[in-house]
């Protein structure tokens, strides 16, 4: 602990905070950092005081308090105790903010990443489904929507028509 405090005797910078935040993982999809997910909207450093703005993926996302706590713990471990975490609703989070690296990690983890350009507009196309979602297992585009609602608020349930594996799709939003 003392070592870390000494190591941080140089002034805090926003860059340093961003680096540390990239080590905080989404508790529900633990291969993604909160930066991959695109939910960190701003970092400000004023002297010893750090302010981090985060935005929820979904209004009811139960992970938000855990994420806020994890941010505090990560910064505290670097000897940074003065942290304000603010919840920012607007502009509303969109899957467009998920980084390319984040999308690759998702697919490797077995969750199909959001397909660009399929956000809300088409939703009232009743019985329609998002454009081809690629199976993260066999990479086939021949898949079908099982349910718009999956194991967490941000995912839909799909099944592959070729390898028959069910999979989660991080739905476009």
């Amino acid at each position, binding site marked *: 602990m003392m070592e870390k405090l000494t190591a941080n005797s140089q002034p805090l910078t926003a860059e340093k905070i961003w680096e540390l935040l990239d080590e905080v993982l989404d508790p529900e999809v633990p291969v993604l950092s909160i930066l991959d997910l695109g939910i960190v909207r701003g970092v400000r450093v004023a002297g010893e005081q750090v302010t981090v*703005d985060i935005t*929820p993926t979904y209004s009811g996302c139960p992970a938000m308090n855990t994420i806020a706590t994890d941010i505090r713990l990560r910064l505290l471990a670097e000897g940074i105790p003065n942290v304000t975490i603010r919840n920012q609703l607007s502009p509303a989070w969109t899957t467009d903010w998920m980084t390319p690296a984040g999308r690759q990690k998702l697919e490797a983890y077995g969750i199909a990443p959001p397909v660009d350009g399929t956000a809300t507009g088409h939703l009232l196309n009743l019985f329609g489904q998002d454009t081809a979602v690629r199976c993260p297992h066999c990479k086939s585009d021949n898949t079908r929507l099982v349910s718009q609602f999956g194991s967490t608020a941000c995912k839909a349930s799909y099944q592959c028509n070729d390898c028959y594996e069910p999979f989660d799709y991080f739905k476009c939003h």
Partner: protein
Amino acid sequence: MLPVMQASPAESAALAAYPAAVRQQLFQYVLQLADTSLILGHRLSEWCGHGPILEQDLAMANIALDLLGETRSLYQYAAELEGQGRTEDDLAYLRAAVEYRNPLLVEQPNGDFAATIVRQFLFDNFHYPFLQQLKSSPDERLAGIAEKAVKEAAYHLKWSSEWVIRLGDGTPESRLRVEKAIASLWRYAAELTTPTATEKALQAAGLIPDYAALQPAMAAHLAHVLQEATLPTPPAATFALAGGKEGRHSEHLGYILTELQYVQRAYPGLTW
């Protein structure tokens, strides 16, 4: 809930600008919106573990969670508007049924799956176009909450619309059940778009959407879904029940609150 996070200052700054009377009306109104999503979310959560199939059990739990998320943002804002030191938890857990402002529709019992679907559809068909308009409210907090929630409400409306169609155009049994559900719940639909004195004042001030302007989109989607479901259009002029938005509730709300508030009433101030 632990105060791990706080609202951004841009969102809090506007509060002071309202005259006291408007602020009080806005408080009542935000409370009404919060009560509405809380009670409907609670009703949907009663299905958890009892859904007809796993995917639809999950769907209802997901929608309940979205509504509870919207509820929390609204109660937090209501608590700030009131400025009396009450928290979101105080507002949810320590008010009596007569203080609740939700419309009667959302407190109606789950009944069978068809009744739950029809209740959800009638609500979603209002909620989605309403939030689309609320996004442009000059009140930044409400606009921000709406901007977030409208994306979720679109999924809800798609889901409930598709189920009305499946049940209506399904088997004789499913059709019979959805017809019965419409016959019993239609009378509660008008309250959603009938403004109270508080709502009229806020509409006149331009802070919340004019419900009359929502009617064309609502009527068009209702007609489309009922036609696809091969169901008859309910009579326009019908005996309508209202009063929930002014605290006059059916007996059902008392039972909901008894369960929802039990822990905080029995063990005041208990936290996880």
